[in-house]
C-alpha cells in the first residue's frame, strides 16, 4: 500500500473491509512511484523541498464524486470555499517556511475555481443561483464566479440560434425580476413587521413565535372566511336578499349571539336550500357538505404530514438538546438586541450551567422508602387532578341540563334576562379552564420531579385531559340532549353556544393577561419583590390562541394550518411556569366544531385576533420579562402537534361523522331540512346522477367503494403491511447509523496516524536543511471530501503548546510539498 508502511494495520480497528484505498488521499500519491519520492534530497543550497510527483495532479484531488450531481456538487463547492478562506489569510510567512510559494497555492485555488465554474455552468439558472448563494466565500469571489458562469453560459449559447437564445434569456430574466418584485411587494404589505422585530429583539425568538402564530392565525382565518363566505354564504345572501328578519337588533346579541343573529347567515339555521325563480340553481346542501368535508380532509392530511416532519426533525435526530455543548454553541439567540434581555439571558445560562454541573456531582440513589413516598405522592396528585376534572365535567353537565330546562320552561324567548342567563355556561367553562390549571401547577410544585422536562409533560397532559373531558361533555350534551329537546333549530342553538364560548373566552383571555401579567407585576415589584416580574407565559398564551381557534372550527378543520401553526408557535415554549398550559385541545376542537354550525365564525375570530395582537403587545411591553429557560422548543412543538392530532382531530372527526351520519337535521331550518340524515343529501345526489349515463363511473365508485366495507378492510390490510416494511427499513437504518459512527471514529484515527507518519518522514528528509522550520507545530487541515463527508483534519494526540501558525497547513499542502520534492528529484535524474 504505502511506502510508509502502515504496519499490517494492527491499529486499524473494526470493520476494515469497508475501507476503500481511496479513502486515504495519500495512497494514490505514493503508489505512483514507490520509494523514490521519499529519498533524501541532497541539495545543500536549495531551501525548497523537492517533491517528485507526476504532472497529473488530479490524483491527489479529492473529488471522488462525479461532477455535476447537484447535491454532492454543492457540498464540494462549499468545501472548496473553505479551502480558499482557510488557507490564505496571513499565511504567507508560514507558507514560505514550508517551502511553497504563494503562487503554488494560488494556482491550486484557481484550478479549483475553474472546476467550480464548470460545474455551475451545467446547472439550470435557478439551481445555479441557489448554489452561488450557498457558497461560503466572500462577496467579491461570488460575484467573480457568477460573472464567469454567466460569461461561459452566454458564450455557450452564442453558437446556437442567437434569436431564440436571446428571447429565452430575456424571458427568464424578466420572469426572475417579476418573481423578485412579487416577493418584495409581499414584504411591503407585511403586517406588523416593525413591531415584531422589536419584540424579537427584546424578548427573544420564542416569545416572538407567539406573535407570529397570532399573525398566521389571522391570515388563516381570513382564508377560511373567504372560502366559506364564497361557497356558502354568498349564494345564501343572494338567495335571501329579499327577506328581512323580524326581530330587532339589541346590543346584547353581540355577546349572546342569539336573537337578531338567529335568522341571519351567521348560523346554520339561516341557510336554506331554496332556489331562485331564475335558472340559477345552487345546491346548498351539497355545497355546505362538501366545502366543509374538503376542509376536514385537507386539515387531516396536512396535520399528519406536519406532525411526521416535525417528529423526524426534532425527536429522531436530536438527542443533544440538554447537553453542555449544545448550550454553549447552539443556544445563544443572536436576534436579541435589548441590553436587559441579553443580561437576563446570560444570567439564565449561568444558572442552568451551574444546575447541570451540580447534577453531575450528585448521585441519584434514593433509598426505597423515599421512592415509595415519591410514588405515593405522584399517585395522590394524579387522583386529585382526575377528581378535579371529573368534578368540573359533572358541574358543567348539570348546568347544561339546567339550561335546557330553562328553555323548555321559558315562555318569552326574547326576554333579556333569559338571554343573559345563557351566558352562565360559557362563563363557568372558561372559569374552570382558567382556575383548574392553576391548581394543577400548584399540585406539581408539591411533587418532586427529577427531570424538569418530564414535569412539563405531566402538566400538559393533565391540562389536556381536563379540556378534553370538558369538551366531550359539552359535545355529548349537544349531540344527545339538544337534538331531541330543543323546540327550534338545534343546529343554530349549538352555533349560539359556540359563539358565546368564543366571545367569553376572548374576554377571559383579556382578563387573564390583566390578572396574570399586570397584577402579578404589581405584586411582584411593589408588594412582594421576591417574586419579581412575571415572564411572558408563552405556553399559556399560545394554547389560548389555539383554544379560540378550536372553538371556531368544527368540520372545517384546517388542521394543517393550525399544525403548521403550532409548529411555529410552540417554538420556545419551555417556561417553568406553565400555569395553564393546555387549553390546547379543547379549544382547537371547539373551534373546529364551530364551523359546521356557524360558518361565519372565522370573521369573528379575525377581529378577535387583530385586537388581541395589540393587547398582548402592550401587556408584554409593560409587564413581562423574557422567559428564563429556552430551548427544546422544537420538541415541545412536536408534542403539541401530536396532542392536537390525537385528541382533537380524532375527536372532532368522530363527532362530525356521527352528526353527519346518524343525527337527524332539524325539520324547520337549515339546508338539510327534510332529510333523515345529512349524508342523505349525497345519496340522493348520487341517485340523481345515476340517471345520467356519463357519470355512471362516479356512481359505481360511490356504491362499490365508499359504501362497501370490504374495500376499506382491504385498504387497511395493505397499509398494515406497508407499515411493517417501513418499520423494518428503519431498524436496518439504525444499525447502519451505528456502524457509520464507528467508521468515522476509525477513519479519523487512520488519517491522524498517516499524517503523523508523513510528517515524520518529511522531517527526516528535511532535517539537514530545515531544522529551524520543522519544529513549528503543524496542524493538518484536510479539505477534501471522503465518504464520511469530513472537511477538517486531525492532530493526533496532544497538540503542541507552542505558537500556532496563523493558518493550518493542510494535508493538501503536505501533498504539494511531496509533489515539489518529486519534481526536483525528477530533474535530478
Amino acid at each position, binding site marked *: 500500500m504505502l511506502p510508509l508502511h502502515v504496519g499490517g494495520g494492527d491499529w486499524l480497528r473494526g470493520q476494515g473491509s469497508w475501507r476503500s484505498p481511496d479513502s486515504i488521499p495519500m495512497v494514490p500519491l505514493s503508489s505512483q512511484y514507490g520509494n523514490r519520492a521519499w529519498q533524501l534530497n541532497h541539495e545543500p543550497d536549495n531551501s525548497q523541498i523537492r517533491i517528485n510527483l507526476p504532472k497529473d495532479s488530479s490524483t491527489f484531488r479529492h473529488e471522488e464524486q462525479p461532477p455535476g450531481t447537484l447535491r454532492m456538487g454543492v457540498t464540494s463547492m462549499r468545501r472548496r470555499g473553505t479551502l480558499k478562506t482557510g488557507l490564505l489569510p496571513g499565511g504567507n510567512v508560514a507558507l514560505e517556511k514550508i517551502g511553497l510559494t504563494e503562487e503554488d497555492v494560488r494556482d491550486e485555488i484557481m484550478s479549483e475555481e475553474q472546476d467550480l465554474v464548470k460545474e455551475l455552468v451545467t446547472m439550470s439558472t435557478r439551481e445555479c443561483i441557489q448554489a452561488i*448563494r450557498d457558497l461560503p466565500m466572500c462577496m467579491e469571489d461570488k460575484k467573480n464566479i457568477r460573472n464567469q458562469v454567466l460569461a461561459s453560459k452566454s458564450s455557450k449559447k452564442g453558437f446556437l440560434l442567437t434569436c431564440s437564445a436571446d428571447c429565452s434569456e430575456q424571458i427568464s430574466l424578466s420572469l426572475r425580476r417579476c418573481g423578485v418584485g412579487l416577493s418584495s411587494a409581499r414584504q411591503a404589505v407585511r403586517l406588523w413587521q416593525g413591531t415584531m422585530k422589536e419584540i424579537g429583539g427584546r424578548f427573544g*425568538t420564542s416569545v416572538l413565535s407567539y406573535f407570529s402564530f397570532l399573525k398566521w392565525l389571522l391570515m388563516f382565518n381570513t382564508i377560511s372566511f373567504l372560502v366559506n363566505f364564497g361557497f356558502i354564504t354568498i349564494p345564501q345572501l343572494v338567495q335571501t336578499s329579499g327577506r328581512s328578519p323580524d326581530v330587532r337588533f339589541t346590543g346584547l346579541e353581540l355577546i349572546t349571539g342569539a336573537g337578531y343573529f338567529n335568522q341571519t347567515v351567521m348560523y346554520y339555521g339561516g341557510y336554506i336550500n331554496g332556489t331562485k325563480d331564475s335558472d340559477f340553481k345552487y345546491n346548498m346542501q351539497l355545497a355546505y357538505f362538501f366545502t366543509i368535508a374538503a376542509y376536514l380532509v385537507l386539515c387531516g392530511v396536512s396535520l399528519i404530514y406536519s406532525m411526521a416532519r416535525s417528529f423526524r426533525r426534532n425527536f429522531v435526530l436530536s438527542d443533544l438538546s440538554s*447537553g453542555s455543548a449544545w448550550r454553549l454553541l*447552539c443556544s445563544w439567540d443572536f*436576534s436579541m438586541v435589548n441590553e436587559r434581555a441579553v443580561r437576563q439571558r446570560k444570567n439564565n445560562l*449561568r444558572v442552568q*450551567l451551574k444546575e447541570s454541573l451540580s447534577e453531575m456531582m450528585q448521585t441519584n440513589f434514593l433509598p426505597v422508602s423515599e421512592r415509595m413516598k415519591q410514588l405515593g405522592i405522584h399517585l395522590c396528585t394524579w387522583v386529585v387532578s382526575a377528581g378535579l376534572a371529573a368534578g368540573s365535567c359533572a358541574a358543567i353537565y348539570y348546568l347544561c341540563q339546567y339550561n335546557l330546562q330553562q328553555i323548555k320552561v321559558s315562555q318569552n324567548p326574547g326576554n333579556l334576562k333569559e338571554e343573559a342567563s345563557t351566558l352562565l355556561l360559557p362563563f363557568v367553562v372558561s372559569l374552570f379552564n382558567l382556575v383548574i390549571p392553576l391548581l394543577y401547577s400548584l399540585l406539581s410544585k408539591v411533587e418532586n420531579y427529577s427531570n424538569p422536562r418530564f414535569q412539563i409533560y405531566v402538566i400538559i397532559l393533565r391540562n389536556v385531559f381536563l379540556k378534553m373531558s370538558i369538551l366531550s361533555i359539552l359535545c355529548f350534551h349537544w349531540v344527545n340532549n339538544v337534538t331531541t329537546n330543543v323546540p327550534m333549530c338545534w343546529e343554530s342553538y349549538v352555533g349560539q353556544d359556540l359563539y358565546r364560548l368564543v366571545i367569553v373566552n376572548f374576554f377571559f383571555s383579556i382578563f387573564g393577561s390583566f390578572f396574570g401579567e399586570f397584577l402579578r407585576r404589581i405584586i411582584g415589584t411593589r408588594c412582594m419583590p421576591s417574586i419579581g416580574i412575571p415572564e411572558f407565559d408563552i405556553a399559556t398564551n399560545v394554547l389560548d390562541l389555539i383554544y379560540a381557534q378550536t372553538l371556531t372550527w368544527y368540520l372545517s378543520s384546517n388542521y394543517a394550518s393550525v399544525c403548521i401553526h403550532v409548529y411555529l408557535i410552540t417554538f420556545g415554549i419551555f417556561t417553568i411556569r406553565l400555569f395553564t398550559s393546555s387549553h390546547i385541545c379543547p379549544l382547537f376542537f371547539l373551534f373546529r366544531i364551530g364551523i359546521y354550525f356557524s360558518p361565519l365564525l372565522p370573521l369573528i375570530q379575525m377581529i378577535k385576533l387583530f385586537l388581541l395582537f395589540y393587547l398582548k403587545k402592550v401587556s408584554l411591553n409593560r409587564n413581562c420579562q423574557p422567559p428564563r429557560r429556552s430551548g427544546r422548543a*422544537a420538541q415541545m412543538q412536536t408534542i403539541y402537534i401530536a396532542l392536537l392530532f390525537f385528541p382533537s382531530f380524532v375527536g372532532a372527526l368522530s363527532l362530525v361523522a356521527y352528526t353527519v351520519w346518524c343525527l337527524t337535521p332539524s325539520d324547520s331550518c337549515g339546508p338539510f331540512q327534510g332529510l333523515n340524515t345529512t349524508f342523505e343529501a349525497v345519496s340522493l345526489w348520487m341517485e340523481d346522477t345515476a340517471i345520467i349515463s356519463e357519470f355512471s363511473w362516479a356512481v359505481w365508485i360511490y356504491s362499490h367503494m365508499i359504501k362497501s366495507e370490504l374495500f376499506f378492510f382491504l385498504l387497511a390490510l395493505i397499509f398494515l403491511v406497508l407499515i411493517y416494511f417501513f418499520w423494518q427499513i428503519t431498524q436496518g437504518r439504525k444499525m447502519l447509523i451505528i456502524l457509520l459512527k464507528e467508521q468515522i471514529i476509525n477513519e479519523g484515527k487512520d488519517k491522524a496516524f498517516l499524517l503523523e507518519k508523513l510528517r515524520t518522514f518529511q522531517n527526516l528528509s528535511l532535517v539537514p536543511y530545515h531544522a529551524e522550520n520543522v519544529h513549528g507545530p503543524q*496542524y493538518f487541515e484536510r479539505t477534501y471530501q471522503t465518504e464520511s463527508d469530513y*472537511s477538517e483534519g486531525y492532530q493526533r494526540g496532544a497538540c503542541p503548546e507552542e505558537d500556532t501558525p496563523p493558518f493550518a497547513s493542510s494535508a493538501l499542502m503536505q501533498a504539494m510539498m511531496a509533489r515539489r520534492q518529486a519534481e526536483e528529484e525528477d530533474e535530478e535524474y
Partner: protein
Amino acid sequence: MGNKQTIFTDEQLDAYQDCTFFTRKEILRLHGRYHELAPHLVPMDYTNDPDVKVPLALIVNMPELKENPFRNRIVESFSEDGEGNLSFNEFVDMFSVLSETAPRELKAIYAFKIYDFNTDNFICMEDLEKTLNRLTKEELTPEEVKLVCEKSIEEADLDGDSKLSFADFENMISRAPDFLSTFHIRI
C-alpha cells in the same frame, strides 16, 4: 416600485441579488444603514465600486450588534483583512448569512468561524472557554469553566482528538433543530 435610484447600477443590483439572500429593496436599505454608520466615509454613489471600509468600532455599535457577546468575532469573520473592517460587500454578505433564508450549512460554516477564536480551524478548549466567558459574563469559577468545556468536548467530539473539528460541529448543529432560528439577526 421602479423608482430610479442612483446608488447602484442595475447590473450591480442583479449581482447582489444573485449572490445574497436579499432583494433589491433590502440591498438599498442595507446601503442606507451602511452609510449611516460613517456618513463622511461612505459615498452615496456606488456605481464605480469605491473601495471603502468602515472600521470595526463603528460596526459593532450598530443596534443589532451592540449587545451581542460575539459581535467582534462576527465582524472579524466576515472581513477579508481579519481585522474587522468591512467593505459594503462584506457587510451585505454578513447580514445575508445571518438572515432568515440562509441555509443551515452556510450558517454552520460561519458559526464555526465565529466560535473559533484563534482561527486554527478547530474549536479547542481555549475557544470554548472564551465562548463560555462571554456568555456568562465571567461569573463562573475557572474550575467550573474547565469542567463545562471538557464536558462539551466530550459530548461533541466524534473522532477523539479532544477538539471540535468542523465535522463535529456540523454534526452537532444538524441535531439542534433550533439553530436556524437562533443564528439569525434581523436587519
